[in-house]
């Protein structure tokens, strides 16, 4: 039941992206703002609880990037959610490197540019949908301890090592929880 309701907003958002890319439609950007800004803020607050100003800055930066880069978004190579997640991730990295104690001159723009871009290919499109579904369904079934570690790494921006320290667990336990989770989601197949 719920799924039927969810699909439509997704399509609306895709249409909004197209409207922004093709005729700079600000009403479309307003709709994306309402949907994504609370998520981006929550994503930032997970890493830095209470840092509302930082969350506001990063959320605005993500919206600016959506506006400026709308024409580079290719629906066939990544879902809109994935694309916005990578924008939020990169904006957060950029903010932290400019404002943290250990400033770095390494520009993250150079480091994540080549990953999402892939040529359109109907086979890949189908593969991508399959992967999406597996991940979405698998995530529901993961045990709480595995979900917790994934949240630490992805949302709180902790490395495996930092997650181990915070949960007072051996690094090996963290590693195996992540591996088990990735295995169940069929993301990781041992080489």
């Amino acid at each position: 039941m719920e799924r039927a309701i969810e699909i439509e907003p997704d399509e609306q958002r895709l249409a909004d992206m197209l409207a922004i890319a093709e005729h700079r439609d600000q009403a479309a950007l307003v709709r994306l703002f309402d949907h994504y800004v609370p998520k981006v803020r929550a994503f930032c607050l997970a890493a830095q609880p209470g840092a509302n100003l930082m969350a506001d800055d990063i959320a605005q930066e993500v919206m600016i990037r959506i506006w400026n880069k709308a024409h580079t978004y290719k629906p066939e190579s990544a879902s809109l959610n994935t694309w916005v997640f990578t924008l939020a991730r990169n904006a957060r990295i950029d903010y932290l490197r400019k404002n943290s104690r250990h400033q770095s001159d390494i520009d993250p723009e150079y480091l994540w540019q080549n990953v999402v871009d892939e040529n359109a290919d109907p086979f890949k499109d189908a593969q991508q949908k399959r992967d999406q579904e597996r991940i979405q369904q698998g995530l529901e079934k993961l045990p709480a301890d595995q979900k917790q570690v994934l949240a630490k790494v992805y949302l709180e921006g902790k490395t495996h090592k930092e997650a181990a320290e915070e949960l007072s667990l051996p690094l090996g336990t963290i590693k195996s929880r992540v591996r088990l989770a990735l295995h169940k989601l069929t993301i990781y197949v041992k080489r």
Partner: protein
Amino acid sequence: MINYHPSIEILTDYAAGSLPLAHSLCVSTHLERCQECQQQIRKLEMLGAHLFDRTHTDSRQLSNLKDSFFEKLNAQVEQKNESLSVEEEPVEIDWDNYVIPNSLRQFIKKSYDDLNWMRLSPSFKIATLYNEEGGAQIALTRVKAGAHMPTHTHTGDEITLVLEGAFSDESGVYRQGDFINRDASHKHKPIVTKDAECICLTVLDAPIEFTGWLTRLLNPLIRRYHPHSS
């Protein structure tokens, strides 16, 4: 054919954005050559997107933020539209026909030869790309065909990425695109293959230490150039 890849932990931290930037630089350079890891990253980013989508949506009133955002946006739109174009840097090829990876373009504009190389022996040169404050040293090493690097141990973690040529040590042969992660306990003596010179990107969390009786004299010099010493 690439045989050595970053571990799944490193790839996950990279996709999540929690990996230190110096290490991310090596992963990114590897990805430019490795389709297999690109696929892995694509899936890891999908997972990130699902977790991102499930964040507990923050319920704060955002109308002020929204107003100020659209004010700024309109100012930007009026100011100039040409700034919207994406900057594209031309791919430049140096006279050795080496193509500089995209990830390194921020440090190397044209050619490996333009870098400030420091000669440590007749066959071994090193050029620092960047020293992170209180962090890692990012450098290129350039070793002549058939030459060997002095035996050394690591005092911290070291990531090596083969950019050009190939080298081998006790554990294997490493070719273009290979990603090698060594920890502090490792002591090795790499030899470059005879057909071509070898250029590697290295990220050192702490200075390496030479263990040969003569090359030990180089240690103070190496330490001086590592950011941890300052």
